[in-house]
């Protein structure tokens, strides 16, 4: 099973990340809708990193528990971190001019979502999307 890390520095990096996720989706046989959800969630998180931390990286891998296969993405940055996690996970909360859907929206799109962050300590977001989308 391949795991692959791609740095996130510029907007265009997303194109590379996305094509790699597409490959993983093809490998697991994930359908188009779940693939679209996962890539959209990834897009939100890449934007978040570029907006707040300026740079970071993402690790992409296939995971399986019992017969279930899924794709796991781990976004890591060493940016300023998030001061109020609870607020950041609420719809409409944004410190920039965004719609404030980034984090909570991404969470709604995938099966599992975890975030770790503290001011000055950067942010780690882990998400898993199972092949069946649940």
């Amino acid at each position, binding site marked *: 099973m391949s795991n692959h890390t791609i740095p996130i520095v510029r907007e265009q990096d997303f194109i590379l990340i996305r094509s790699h996720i597409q490959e993983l989706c093809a490998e697991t046989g994930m359908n188009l809708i779940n693939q679209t959800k996962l890539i959209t969630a990834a897009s939100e998180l890449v934007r978040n990193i570029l907006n707040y931390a300026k740079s970071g990286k993402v690790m992409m891998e296939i995971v399986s528990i019992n*017969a279930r296969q899924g794709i796991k993405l781990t976004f890591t940055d060493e940016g300023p971190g998030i001061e109020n996690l609870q607020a950041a996970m609420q719809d409409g909360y944004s410190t920039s001019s965004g719609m404030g859907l980034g984090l909570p929206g991404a969470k709604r799109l995938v099966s599992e979502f975890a975030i770790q962050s503290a001011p000055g300590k950067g942010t780690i977001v882990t998400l898993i999307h199972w092949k069946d989308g649940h």
Partner: protein
Amino acid sequence: MKMQVDDTMQRNNLVSREELQRQSEELLTALLQAIKKGNFDNVYTDDYAQVNDILSDISVMRARQGFSPRETNRFVLSLKQALCDVLEQEHAGTPEVLYKEILQVNSLLDNLSIIAFETYIKGREDVILRQSDEINEISTPVIRVWEGILALPIIGTLDSSRTQTVMENLLQEIVETGSSIAILDISGVPTVDSMVAQHLIKTVSATRLMGAECIISGIRPEIAQTIVHLGIDLSNIVTKATLASALQVAFARLNLQVRSIDRMAAPLLK
């Protein structure tokens, strides 16, 4: 030895005698080969790869054929009695050796039966997964009622995985047919709670994003009551009591008219 084993196993009548014979011969041959290598302890090594493969195939097949776990496991465990009988004959005079060998055979077959059981369960899970997919598929037909009008009768509870299938099927069909109106009929949905309502609203929103309109029909009186009591807001959605009145709205949107033919004029049409 083969004879003994076969005898024991023919108690099962879900597979043919020949099939059973073939399976046990296959398994026995592989097992004998593995045992020859002198490894009695670890069944997860390469020595037992072939045995494990055969065992897995048989277990998965049995899960699909509807064998009970007991029957599947007995297939493996019946070997125990047979092997012990053979050992008893061979080592009748030396009880210490007999005891040791029986112990080894026991633990070996226990391990094999665990493998058989694990794969049996996996086989069953696959069956369940496939069935739930099928149920999802079957229970969400999209009907082309008229040029430009789709209808989707929903029967049963609407949970999130079902909603996803409904949305997928509906939106795909909208693209394929270029239909601009979809009617979701919920007469077959037993109850509408806030979760179900949320799913309905999502489906309607997705339809609108595509550029089509969605009408919900089949609102029974008790459903109307629960919707209001739960404070669910469906005011942005066109809702109708019956599929017929939803169709009427759809026809009107498409500037179509349904009329009964004048009796006097009818013969002229023939």
